[in-house]
């Protein structure tokens, strides 16, 4: 049996158990998808107190609307959609910016970095703790870029799954991920190599 089919069967089993009144099954759904929800919430919401409320809100919405879930996607993808929309609603309510004019072509930086010498990134990584550098630099990206990068590289979702979660066209998702990685690489090289190393 393929992995996708097995997932779908598990989803069916879990959803029908919850709809038949089994609360432990819902606890299992939470534990299975908590990683994705926390990843997205941490990337989209800066305030730790609000993250707690949003995460709870997401699962209460999932429970309330579970009978409408039609198994057209994986249950985790559907929960990802609800998380994304809940975070988006929060961002709009707080008048925050999801994606400012960020990571557009910057000629000055581009020119500075044209002479990327052999193993620049390796030098940076030898001089600093890579995880700390990356954490700090990813945090500086706009919420949408942070989320897309994490969903692709850390959660290992496909472009199609990310497009389903964010309701963005697949091409736009790819384009944003490319830009986010380029911005990340350039900012790491310009800050840590040229200024501090």
């Amino acid at each position: 049996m393929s992995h996708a089919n097995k997932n779908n069967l598990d989803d069916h089993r879990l959803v029908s158990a919850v709809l038949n009144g089994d609360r432990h099954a819902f606890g299992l759904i939470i534990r299975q998808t908590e990683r994705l929800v926390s990843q997205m919430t941490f990337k989209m919401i800066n305030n730790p107190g609000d993250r707690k409320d949003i995460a709870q809100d997401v699962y209460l919405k999932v429970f309330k609307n579970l009978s409408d879930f039609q198994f057209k996607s994986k249950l985790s993808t559907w929960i990802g959609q609800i998380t994304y929309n809940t975070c988006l609603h929060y961002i709009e309510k707080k008048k925050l910016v999801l994606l400012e004019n960020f990571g557009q072509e910057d000629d000055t930086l581009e020119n500075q970095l044209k002479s990327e010498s052999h193993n620049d990134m390796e030098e940076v990584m030898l001089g600093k703790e890579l995880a700390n550098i990356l954490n700090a630099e990813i945090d500086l990206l706009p919420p949408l870029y942070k989320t897309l990068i994490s969903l692709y590289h850390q959660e290992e979702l496909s472009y199609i799954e990310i497009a389903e979660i964010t309701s963005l066209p697949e091409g736009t998702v790819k384009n944003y991920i490319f830009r986010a990685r380029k911005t990340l690489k350039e900012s790491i090289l310009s800050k840590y190599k040229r200024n501090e190393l």
Partner: protein
Amino acid sequence: MITAHLSENEIQLYVAEPQAISKEQIAHIQGCASCRTKATNYELLFKGIGDVLHPTFDFDLSGLVLAQLPVAVPKKAFPWATLLISFLSVAIIVASICLFWTAIQSVMKMMPSIMLSIAGTGVIVILAFQCMEMLKEHQKRMQALLFQKTLQL
């Protein structure tokens, strides 16, 4: 072999999805020190992002949510509106037939049997097509509604 350097996007593709770029582009990267350095930098970056610690909540999310769940199990609402509309439609059709029965009978008597069968077949074909269209439209709308509802959540 391609002599122009590859774009940042192409180099990223080389690292993340090598199957998505051409053999000529791969050959260029392998033979070009500048592009190879960029590719190595991206390789390290991708590996680094993958290794970054995963954020976790510092509270018991499952416990908090389960404590707040409503007592009632979520159930699909019974489609009263659809049922009422269907019932009214059938009632109108039946009432019309009853009301105009004598007129319908006299028209049918006056018509030759061949005309009657052609008209009957025509009506059945048109009705079948309309039913199929309605079903397709209904499915499309339901999908759009579900999508919209998920977006609003």
